[in-house]
């Protein structure tokens, strides 16, 4: 490695990390050389695209298509990253701190733009991702890529928490299968009856573990009760100690105290919910749209239930007539600020985020497109029913706090929300403690 001959005196943390990161980066480089020795004669047009593993096969398909069809002779290498989003984030962070790394286009989680943008690690796309292009996207995903008025990424696909219910069990217990519960209270009544008659082991399963998914679930309960985490007009102000947020977390806790959800829900992540639901053990579930593919998969995905038995709806609200909110998930496309092929990188981003790619991803992978046009395309909506719901949900999807210190805020929320569901802390204590801890983080970071 040709690395800076920095004097050790007065070495800042940034430089220290760059030096230590150089070791990591060079190790990664060696590995890459070993792995891709056949493509070592790379031309200057070789772009590196980083993305986690992809079960749907659509990423490879799209990259092959781009390599074949683009008019500028750009060729793209896909560098596969960790499936664990947290580990992927850590490895990117290390590379950025080490001076940028060699990745040109990065696919990344919906909560990263503020953090990456704040540190200047990714390109500010204001000039490229202009208003006319922005107007083609749904507002939720667009909001999530914007930090201080500037877009730092282009939304690639989107995701939203949804409410899954068993039509057959509802019918069997005397409920209209086309009228899923609209409030949490109604849901708890139905769940009690269904579990009582022995048709399901659990009423509801959701993600209550201490991890990022737990933040999504907790945020949904808070929003559903009319509360918020950060002040929408001033994101440096924490407002989680409002009474509505307490109500929201109390409702979440009540799923366990009323035995609607099993006590083990405090350890549940997506996979655990998925197992319980596909086994037919649970009547209701909060989970992401990807479930549809698994339910439809039948034996191949280990599902004991069929799409005909299942309905999908917006999440229930706290009060009758209220609105339930879904947490926005999904992935964005970033351009590395240190890339020396930004024009080519932008070509790839435009292609991957374009309507044609979105259609392929929706049809073959069940991914929700952030583009408005996909939802009016009959060829798509007819085949992927979750899409129809997603478009009607549009104004009920909200993004987690956009903050450059999101990972620190999230750590606190993960612990707080989990303790509240477990019952080791009351919701009132949780919100007041979170209020001071989170405000402390923001003050420390912006001081």
């Amino acid at each position, binding site marked *: 490695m040709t690395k800076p001959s920095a004097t050790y005196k007065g070495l800042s943390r940034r430089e*220290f990390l760059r030096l230590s990161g150089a070791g990591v980066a060079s190790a990664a480089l060696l590995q890459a050389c070993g792995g891709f020795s056949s493509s070592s004669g790379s031309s200057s047009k070789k772009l590196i695209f980083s993305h986690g593993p992809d079960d749907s096969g659509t990423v490879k398909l799209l990259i092959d298509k781009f390599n074949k069809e683009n008019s500028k002779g750009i060729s793209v290498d896909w560098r596969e990253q960790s499936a664990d989003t947290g580990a992927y984030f850590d490895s990117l962070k290390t590379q950025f701190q080490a001076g940028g790394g060699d990745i040109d286009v990065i696919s990344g989680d919906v909560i990263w733009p503020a953090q990456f943008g*704040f540190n200047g690690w990714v390109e500010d796309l204001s000039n490229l991702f202009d208003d006319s292009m922005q107007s083609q996207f749904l507002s939720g995903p667009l909001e999530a890529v914007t930090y201080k008025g500037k877009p730092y990424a282009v939304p690639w696909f989107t995701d939203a928490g949804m409410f899954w219910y068993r039509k057959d069990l509802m019918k069997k217990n005397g409920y209209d299968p086309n009228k899923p519960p609209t409030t949490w209270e109604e849901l708890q009544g139905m769940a009690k009856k269904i579990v009582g008659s022995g048709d399901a082991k659990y009423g509801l399963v959701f993600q209550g573990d201490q991890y990022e998914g737990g933040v999504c679930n907790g945020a949904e309960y808070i929003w559903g009760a009319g509360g918020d985490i950060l002040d929408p007009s001033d994101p440096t102000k924490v407002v989680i100690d409002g009474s509505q947020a307490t109500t929201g977390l109390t409702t979440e806790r009540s799923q366990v105290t009323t035995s609607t959800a099993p006590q083990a829900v405090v350890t549940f992540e997506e996979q655990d919910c998925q197992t319980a639901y596909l086994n037919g053990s649970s009547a209701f579930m909060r989970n992401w749209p990807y479930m549809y593919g698994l339910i439809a998969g039948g034996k191949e995905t280990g599902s004991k239930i069929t799409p005909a038995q299942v309905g999908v709806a917006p999440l229930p609200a706290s009060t009758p007539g209220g609105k339930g909110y879904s947490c926005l998930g999904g992935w964005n496309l970033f351009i590395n600020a240190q890339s020396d092929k930004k024009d080519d990188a932008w070509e790839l981003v435009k292609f991957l985020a374009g309507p044609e790619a979105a259609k392929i991803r929706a049809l073959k992978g069940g991914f929700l497109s952030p583009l408005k046009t996909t939802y009016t395309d009959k060829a798509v909506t007819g085949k992927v029913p979750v899409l129809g719901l997603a478009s009607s949900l549009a104004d009920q999807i909200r993004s987690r706090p956009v903050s450059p210190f999101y990972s620190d805020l999230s750590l606190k929320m993960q612990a707080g929300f989990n303790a509240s569901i477990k019952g080791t802390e009351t919701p009132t204590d949780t919100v007041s403690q979170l209020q001071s801890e989170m405000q402390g983080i923001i003050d420390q970071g912006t001081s």
Partner: protein
Amino acid sequence: MAESVSAKQVAARKGRRPGLFSSFKNEFRNKDRRLAYYMIAPVLIIILAVAVYPIVYAIYLSFQEVIPNQPSHWAGLQNYTQMFSDPIFHSALLNTAIFTVCSVALELVLGIPIALALNRAFKGRGVARAASLAPYAFPTAIWAIMWRLMFQDQVGIMQYISTKLHIFTDPILGSSGALLIAGVIVDVWKTTPFMALLILAGLQVIPRDVYEAARVDGATPWQQFWRITLPLVKPALLVAVLFRTLDAWRVYDLFWVMGSKQLNSLSTYVYTGVSVSQLDFSLGNAAAVFVFVSSLLIALVFLRGIGTRAQG
């Protein structure tokens, strides 16, 4: 043996008397000794560069306040006071202490009989020795996932058994107390064989004739164990306990994987601060220094114990 040891000590004491610097000078005046120092110099430099420098730098960093996008500055003891008043650090320290004491004590109590059994001549002893090491051969992260599945409430056999026997009916993975006990059980399962192996090595150097003499004198097996085996195996025992204590004190993968990040230890606290969080880098660094210093103290206490035993 005992004579030569004490002779050496006397010599060492004599050598120290003229003061460190002049004895250093004497050492270098001798041509052969000088050459010896030159020859070990490269190794010393490498150790300084790869071991001492990072430690010193980590200690230096732990006194700095570091915030992204801002120049770092001297913070004195602020990181340490903040760390010691952090409730998460308290729980991490408590969990690590309980885990270390319980798991090492249980491993010791179970390891001694296993080592004694393996020390006997019986058919298939080689197979038994190899088999007992099987759990130790797996990478921790892998069996941590395995055990997590066994403790899981829907498919887990451990949860099933504990619920049926009314030992613990709540989800094990959801309670931090139960999770800690589970962690101790799993660690004992994994590392008792290692402990037994180290003790076995100690047992094998005890000369047979000592036992023969004892038998001639009419000592019961119980007396033989307390009067011969235990005192003679003590140095090996202490080394084994030291290894395990230091290992347990740094526990990371077991807690992080099996507890799915719900169980804190000192090492997970360091990791969260340094790697996950953006703002707690200095705090994590201070905790890393704390782990280093506390490990060093533990090691020193044990080494002192081992040293005095060896003399007596």
